[in-house]
């Protein structure tokens, strides 16, 4: 594990409980940094981070309904896999995904 860790650049985001269960918060970044990141928490307390832009027409995924390991985009209801950022078939597309680490109560994201 440690071999992997050395390659990561973790940034502290928030406490786990700052994230609503089956919901998300927006991590603000300006466009030059690549735009906002959505940080999700599902019912199993697994945390995921995706670029807050739907592969369809850029809808803010952070505002969608979270279920299982997916989020439904609020604009046209595409389903996006939280793990990979891939749109669920038959829709095709992928949004950038960021590695996440939960250490006790602290949530870290590698934003590169």
């Amino acid at each position, binding site marked *: 594990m440690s071999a992997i860790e050395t390659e990561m650049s*973790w940034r502290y985001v928030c406490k786990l409980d700052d994230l609503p269960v089956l919901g998300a918060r927006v991590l603000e970044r300006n466009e030059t940094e690549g735009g906002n990141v959505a940080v999700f928490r599902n019912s199993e307390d697994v945390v995921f981070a995706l670029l807050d832009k739907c592969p369809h027409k850029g809808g803010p995924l952070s505002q969608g309904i979270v279920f299982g390991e997916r989020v439904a985009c609020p604009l046209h209801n595409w389903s996006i896999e939280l793990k990979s950022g891939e749109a669920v078939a038959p829709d095709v597309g992928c949004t950038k995904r960021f590695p996440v680490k939960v250490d006790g109560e602290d949530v870290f994201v590698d934003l590169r």
Partner: protein
Amino acid sequence: MSTVQKQKLAVIGNGMAGIRTIEELLKIAPDKYEITVFGTEPHPNYNRILLSPVLAGEQTIKDIVLNDWDWYKDNGINLITGKTITEIHRTRRELTTASGEKHNYDRLLIATGSNPFILPIEGKNLPGVISYRDIADTEAMIDAAKIYKNAVVIGGGLLGLEAANGLKLRGMDVTVVHVMPWLMERQLDEKAGKLLQASLEAKGITFKMQAQTEALIAGESGRVAALRFKTGEQIPADIVVMAVGIRPNTALAEKSGLQVSARPGGIIVNDTMQTLTDPRIYSVGECVNHRGTAYGLVAPLFEMAKVCANHLAEYGIGRYVGSVTSTKLKVTGVDLFSAGNFQGGEGFEDIVLSDPMGGVYKRLVVKDDKLVGACLYGDTVDGSWYFKLLREGKNVAEIRDQLMFGESNIGDVGHEGNTRAVTMKDTDEVCGCNGVCKGTITKAIKEKGLFTLDEVRKHTKASSSCGSCTGLVEQLLMFTAGGDYSATPKMKPMCACTDSTHQHTRDAIREQKLLSVPEVMKTLGWRTPNGCSSCRPAINYYLLSTWPKEYVDDPQSRYINERAHANIQKDGTFSVIPRMWGGETTADELRRIANAVDKYKIPTVKVTGGQRIDLLGVKKEDLPAVWKDIGMPSGHAYAKALRTVKTCVGSEWCRFGTQDSTQMGKDLERAMWRMYAPHKVKYAVSGCPRNCAEAGIKDVGIIGVDSGWELYVAGNGGIKTEVAQFFVKVKTSDEVLEYTGAFIQLYREEGWYLERTVHYVSRVGLDYCKKKVVDDAVNRKALWERLQFALDGEPDPWFEFDKARVDTRQFIPIKPIAADTVATV
């Protein structure tokens, strides 16, 4: 960690039902089994139904393949074609092929389809005598048509007529021999059967009716050359196609000791598609007998496939309870449709339209105000509509008079399209919501092998939004895919997470007093851990409307608009629409709005059609501050809830006014606001029949007259304009509140999520609503009281965040911490 050995699933029969089951299984449990498929035919799974268009030269074999070789490979399925299984050793769980290979299984699926029935007559085995079941038969017919002249088809049913039509188109002289007095006697009544015969005769096909074949006679070459009837008459026949029916293919099952029905045949299965004898062995398709019925059309087989996959995946909830089927003959130029019990009889009512000159005949059979059968000839555009009414068991009493003239006559503009489907050009738009044209849909149906409305929705997005083009898409499915696959179960499940219908879910919540979303999902056996974006909001609403004050609202089960209490726009900003009671405002309110627009740099200010002001382009972070600065109540313009009460100026100012419509509107709005409902609810009140507030297209429309108020319900100005229907006339404004409130409460308690009042009323019938609200004073008062109880003390979500369970964290974006806390490089 040791790797878990996957269970072995073997499938006998590489046909439509077997492979459909595997497809369904892969969707829900892709890694559960190591799958092996055995098939006698040397082809991958193809669409058997489309053999007729192939025979007729309208399509090629290549066009009709459903799962190509790569599909099996990509899904890790071991496909063994050209091998017939001849033995199942159940205790050893072992299969043997005709050439002696052995194969073990943990679970087995038998999908061997059916065999053509061969008449036990002399000469039945002669070369040139063909049945009509598979690609080999079809190719044999195509080849024969190249060399020979005279074809005889025995059997005037669906298959026989499609064969006859194909052979005729390939240039042969075709005679159809049928024992019954009219064609397709199991699907058509006598009139329609005769009309069908006439139109096929016009295509050049000859008929021998009520004729019994005695023998097939060989010619010099040893090949069939003639057919002799019992009467002694003889006709030339270079090929004979036997299409006198099918028998479930159960020889293998019987040999292995599985229980098989004697009549009408088929391996006996239970509601979970397991064979009665051996629970490790499942069976689907034409080879089964379910509750005494063996099916011969694909729609029921696909329902079976779904249930079977569900049990193979060990979700264990689906039940197959049988199907209603419909028939459509795939002979280009002949329009014929039949479904249900079209023969009628005692206790049944017949509605018949007969226009032999125009070649049109329609017969509808009604029982207890429900459509139970339909037989259409010459004009089948309303087939899918009738089929829908029939399957859903809709009450047709109110539309009985117009029933015969079809859906377009019911004033249902949106669904009218039926007639259009065929005549439309490929570039014509079908789905206005998603901009999908006919060509895209038919192409997807063909190339991706789509069968159901749901699949078309997923792949093309057509009909996935407002649904008003559903009728058109169903028609396209019918014409393109060849058969009628229109949505199968009698009652649709809420979504793919469950088999429970909206009604069933509602009932369970009430009867078992379920009080949370997880509890509902657990009790009703949801397949997914926490539902999806379609079922969760519905369940949340059902809980809220059934158990007001007890159920605790779950914002994460609400769509973003109802979570943020503002409408999301396409750029991710929001709109703010404050409430203006009855459309009235004041200088003070306008000033506060103007100040907020400046302060928060709100780009657009627009007057809505609901008589209030819309501030568009508000950033999510600014929402709470904008609400606070404006200081007006939430307009709920974002919610499935009471929206506006639109009013005209009324008697206070208007020279025509008979009633004070503005005051009435304000009173109504104050009584009903904060009311969540299955869908949005709009009211309007006009002060006289000139109806300037357009009350005729609202969920509840109220029109003032000299002597009181006329109440209208279930109007809709949306995608399809629906004129509100007269409900009752009352005298006082208190009565207006009580009657309309009771009606809306009935809808809140019984409507399905996302069902507008117009759809609710058409489902249960206007008479039913009148009975509950107008005729029954006690019930009316009880409904009205329950509404007031539910609304009493309801918070305004813009100001009472805690009480309305608004998660205010959502308005505060997280700023990434500048320094890396645990960074290592």
